[in-house]
């Protein structure tokens, strides 16, 4: 690696001050599993950093907590190991636990953070579809104060987010899951671990009361959120497929119809991991499976 300067602030304000005083050319450093690799390989979407600001000691970015009233707070600095091991995440947000528990290896998960995954903004970032499906919001802090952005508006393009120079992602807020909600995330990869998603699909559904509709299969789709990874320049919601389901009975036919719509609305490219046609096919197959899984969990 070429030389750079290193700062290790101990509070969020101090980190923001360093970035403001030193100005352009700096880069926040969390787990380093994207940034250090990119710096070693010299493949960066921005100029090689003149200085890095380690986020490891910022208490504001650490850990996670949950309350029934406000939901889940995931610190940007929470590692995937911490998220995947968290009893409350596993219990209340299995969709998020499933995204967190497949990032790289044991070693990767011990270093890689939620914030780094989102800010690196790969179209295949594994925590993005689950958090998009959960309608999470991003809390951002910078030289001109704090702001909150729906995660849906956070990604701009491959490697690009709405973060302005000197801004930091502080935490992600996830609303509490309503009753009769179920969700799941899966990705397709040739290798189970240590691979990057060819396609990732997250489905979160909330069902109405099973009695009101009189459906033998139990209720109608009250709310459906579908998010796709690695099929567009950013992780995206599949809004047409969602709209197709809401208000309809939670039946296999309705699910198959929505999967066909998701297949059509995905805009994948062809690359080394798969052709556009293969990815599109996977979106259809996986959306159908994931919706069924989400419905099964919502009924539990």
């Amino acid at each position, binding site marked *: 690696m070429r030389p750079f*300067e290193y700062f290790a602030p101990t509070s969020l304000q101090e980190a923001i001050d360093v970035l403001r005083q030193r100005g352009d050319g700096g880069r926040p450093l969390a*787990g380093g599993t994207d940034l250090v690799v990119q710096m070693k390989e010299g493949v960066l979407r921005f100029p090689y950093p003149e200085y890095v600001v380690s986020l490891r000691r910022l208490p504001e970015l650490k850990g996670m907590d949950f309350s029934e009233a406000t939901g889940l707070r995931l610190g940007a600095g929470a590692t995937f190991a911490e998220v995947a091991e968290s009893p409350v995440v596993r219990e209340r947000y299995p969709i998020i636990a499933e995204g967190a528990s497949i990032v790289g290896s044991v070693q990767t998960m011990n270093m890689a953070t939620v914030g780094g995954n989102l800010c690196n903004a790969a179209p295949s970032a594994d925590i993005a579809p689950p958090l998009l499906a959960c309608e999470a919001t991003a809390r951002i802090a910078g030289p001109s104060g704090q702001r909150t952005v729906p995660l849906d508006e956070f990604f701009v393009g491959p490697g690009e987010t709405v973060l302005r120079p000197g801004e930091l992602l502080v935490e992600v807020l996830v609303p509490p899951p309503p009753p009769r909600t179920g969700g799941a995330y899966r990705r397709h990869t040739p290798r189970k671990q240590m691979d990057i998603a060819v396609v990732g699909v997250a489905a979160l559904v909330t069902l109405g009361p099973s009695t009101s509709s009189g459906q033998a299969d139990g209720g109608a789709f009250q709310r459906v959120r579908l998010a796709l990874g690695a099929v567009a320049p950013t992780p995206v919601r599949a809004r047409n497929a969602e709209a197709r389901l809401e208000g309809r009975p939670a039946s296999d036919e309705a699910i198959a119809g929505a999967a066909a719509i998701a297949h059509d609305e995905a805009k994948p490219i062809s690359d080394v991991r798969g052709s556009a046609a293969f990815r599109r096919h996977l979106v259809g197959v996986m959306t159908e499976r994931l919706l069924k899984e989400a419905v099964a969990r919502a009924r539990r």
Partner: protein
Amino acid sequence: MSKQIITLNVNGERQEIAVEPRWTLLYTVREALRLTGSKEGCGTGDCGACSMIVDGRLVTSCLMLAAQADGTEVTTIEGLAPSPVAGADGRLHPVQQAFIDTGAVQCGFCIPGMIMAAKTLLDANPNPTLDDVRLGLAGNLCRCTGYTKIYEAVLSAADRMR
């Protein structure tokens, strides 16, 4: 580039080291401390040859800046048995002994990382299934053995440690 002083507790010994910001933990441990058991295979987090335990967590030390490890406790392969040949009591760590007895080592390059990953797995899960072992070692590549004997060695180490 100017150096800064960091403090590491490496295998139970406190070390003050002057490091450049661009030095990784792996580079620092190998070059400044001359503990050369940990290897650099890829340098990009893919092979696990550089695996160390930092504050109780298995990491790929090629992706961690030494400065980021300031103030942590680091265990390297040398920390499992103090001499390369045998520990103070004349014995290797059970995982090391199991690798030898099973014949799980060929060129040996991946083995320090494999053993650190295996020790981490067995500390957390003393009764792993074969699938647990595969998952625990998924971040460690071996170009020689085909893994079969390595998995056998880890399961045998689990037996010995129970």
